[in-house]
């Protein structure tokens, strides 16, 4: 991460703009135990109260870290029932990083966010259809499979 990802200008700008970044050793106590860290790098996205909403384990290239962090921001809003804000982050992720590894989950979460904000089942079925079309072998296509019946 230090050699490739963090020195990347886009990454640095994104983190500076959107987060308070904290770096601690993997064995720093009590934090490492509190967050059940077992491997490095472990990246945790948390809200301003320190509550975890998203994590990744392992190296991420710049073109994967930014969409992963966008997904983390979306999850914070989603978990706080702020669905419009969640959708804004998810749309940005899918527009700017459509082929990232975070995209299938973003499509799924976008469908659920739309459903929760509109109570219409249509976005869930659309999420399933898009996942089947673009990411048919992803775990998120499997998780969305029941929505084909809606």
């Amino acid at each position, binding site marked *: 991460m230090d050699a490739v990802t963090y020195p990347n200008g886009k990454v640095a700008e994104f983190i500076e703009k959107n987060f*308070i970044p904290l*770096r601690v050793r993997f064995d720093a106590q009590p934090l490492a135990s509190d967050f059940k860290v077992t491997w*490095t790098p*472990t990246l945790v996205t*948390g809200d301003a109260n320190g509550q975890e909403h998203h994590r990744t384990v392992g190296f991420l290239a710049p073109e994967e870290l930014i969409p992963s962090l966008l997904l983390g921001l979306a999850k914070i809003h989603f978990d706080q029932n702020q669905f419009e804000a969640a959708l804004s982050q998810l749309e940005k992720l899918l527009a700017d990083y459509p082929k990232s590894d975070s995209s299938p989950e973003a499509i799924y979460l976008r469908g659920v966010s739309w459903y929760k904000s509109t109570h219409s089942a249509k976005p869930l079925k659309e999420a399933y259809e898009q996942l089947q079309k673009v990411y048919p072998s992803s775990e998120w296509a499997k998780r969305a499979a029941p929505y084909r019946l809606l």
Partner: protein
Amino acid sequence: MAKFKWETEWKEALARARAEKKPVLIDFFNPG
């Protein structure tokens, strides 16, 4: 290197997060 500055203390990072209304990004790393 990165242009941003890492916080190194949990309490200080949380205080900044609340004051600036931003989420936190925690990197648990192995210094090698």
